[in-house]
Every structure is written in C-alpha cells, then in structure tokens.
C-alpha cells in the first residue's frame, strides 16, 4: 500500500465520518457536548464499517 492509496482510504473514512456525524445531528432533538462526543464515536464506527464492507466487496 503506497502513500497515495493510504491517502485515499483516509479521505474515504473521513468523508463517511463527517457525513454520518451530520446524520446523527439530524436524528437527535437537542445537541450538547456529550451528544457530540457520542455521535462522533458512533459515526466513526459507521465509517469504519463502510470502509470495511467496501473493501470486502471490492477486492475479490
């Protein structure tokens, strides 16, 4: 894995992470600090899942 592919992977995970954190903010009713922290970690789990599934399907 060279630097370019690593960069692309990081970019993909970051993109999903940002999108899912935004989605969490849509789902909840009131936002506070703890809510942001929990939302960001849940979104990270989702982003990693997205990356892992794409890889599992992609390189066969």
């Amino acid at each position, binding site marked *: 894995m060279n630097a370019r592919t690593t960069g692309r992977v990081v970019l993909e995970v970051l993109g999903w992470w940002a999108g*899912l954190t935004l989605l969490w903010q849509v*789902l909840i009713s009131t936002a506070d600090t703890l*809510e942001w922290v929990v939302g960001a970690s849940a979104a990270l*789990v*989702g982003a990693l*899942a997205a990356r892992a*599934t794409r890889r599992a399907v992609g390189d066969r």
Partner: protein
Amino acid sequence: MTRGARLIVLALGGAGLAALLVAACLDLPGFGGTWHPYGDRAVEASLSRRTANTIASVNFDQRAFDTLGEMSILFASVVGTVVLLRQTRDEKRGKPEPEEVALPVRRYALIVLPVAVLSGLYVIAHGQLSPGGGFQGGVVAATALHLLYLGADYRALERVRPVGLFEVGDALAASAYVVTGLAAVLGGTAFLANTLLPYGTFNTLASGGTVPLLNAAIGMEVACAVVVLLARFLDQAVEIEEENGKR
C-alpha cells in the same frame, strides 16, 4: 392416534379453552379504562430518577433484575443454538460461491449499511430518552451488518465479521450487566439498585444513573447474540455440506 381422532380432541379442548378465555375477557377491566395503579407509580418513580423514557426506567431500573432473567434466557438460547448447529464430523465446509448481484442492489446495500449501523447505535444510545433501547437497537445494528450478505455475498460478510470476537463480546456484555449490578452491592445497597451514579439533568444523554450503562450492555449483548445466531444459520444454509458417504 389417527389424524381424525386428534382433530376431535383438539376441537373439544379448543372449544373449552375458548369458552374460558372469553369468560375471562368479559371480566377484565374494560379496554381503555383509567385504572392503572402500577403504571402511575412507575411513571412517578421514573420521573423522580430523571429518566425521560419511562419504559427504559422500568426495564433497567425498577425491574432490572427481571431484565437480567430475560438476558439469561437470550444467552442460553444462543448457546443452545450454537451447540445444536456446530459442524459435525460427517460434514464438510464448502466454499460459498460468488453471487451475481445487480449493480443498484449492491450500491444500495453498501450505502445503507453504515446508515443502518448508525441508526442502530442511535436507538441504543437514546434508549433512556426517546423510544428505543438496547433490545431494539441491538437487533437493528446486527441486522444492518447482514445487508452485506443480502447485497453482495456470504464471502464478503465473512471477511468483515469475525464470529469469535462477537462471541467474546456477547459474554463480556452479559458479565458487564452483572458487574454493574454487583457494583451497587459494593456501594452498600441492593443488587442492581440505581443509587450509584448521579441522576443528571432530565432529558440528556447522561441522565438516569445506571440506566444508560445497563442499556448499553444489553445493546451489545443483543447485537452480538444476533450476529452469532445468524452466523450459525448462514453456515448451515450456505456453507456446510454433508459427506456423500453418509447412510
């Protein structure tokens, strides 16, 4: 007993049961009545501990011991299924064949999977505030993972799902529930009593004392349990072949 005789016995028993049940229904308090003594007290108790979702408060605070029982039924049935569906000596493991899946279906699965996982986590995390909780969210998060089987194939699912880890997670979550209960005993009160943590501000994530912790433990337990269950069923349906020499 022949089929006809069995039907007659069934009809007699069924008619008797039906008569008794209908008589019982006519004696129940009428549907939609205002007399709910337990419900009113449960709502009061929940509000006094600042848990917004009364049902979560009943499950994880007022009747937390009962939920421990439910959880052990769940755990036991998962263990039973794993034992029943293990690979026996006269079975071999075939390679699952790759599937041809239409492109829109595959794209849909890949996009919706993270969204469904996030929704499952949201339902777990907000269990003590809005409708939801560990039981529901756990099932959603676990089912979300299986979109990969539905939208791609079983080999792809196997790559991202280490069953051993989920088995460990199942056991860890079950013990986390018990440990939280025992912590209350060490704190000088009763098993699973909700006196350990501050009750927090009403309608925020940290409210309700130990309710969010127990809720999260149940969420993890259910999610891992469903993944392990489905793994066994998928193995049986897709992978495991019987030896030709049998019988």
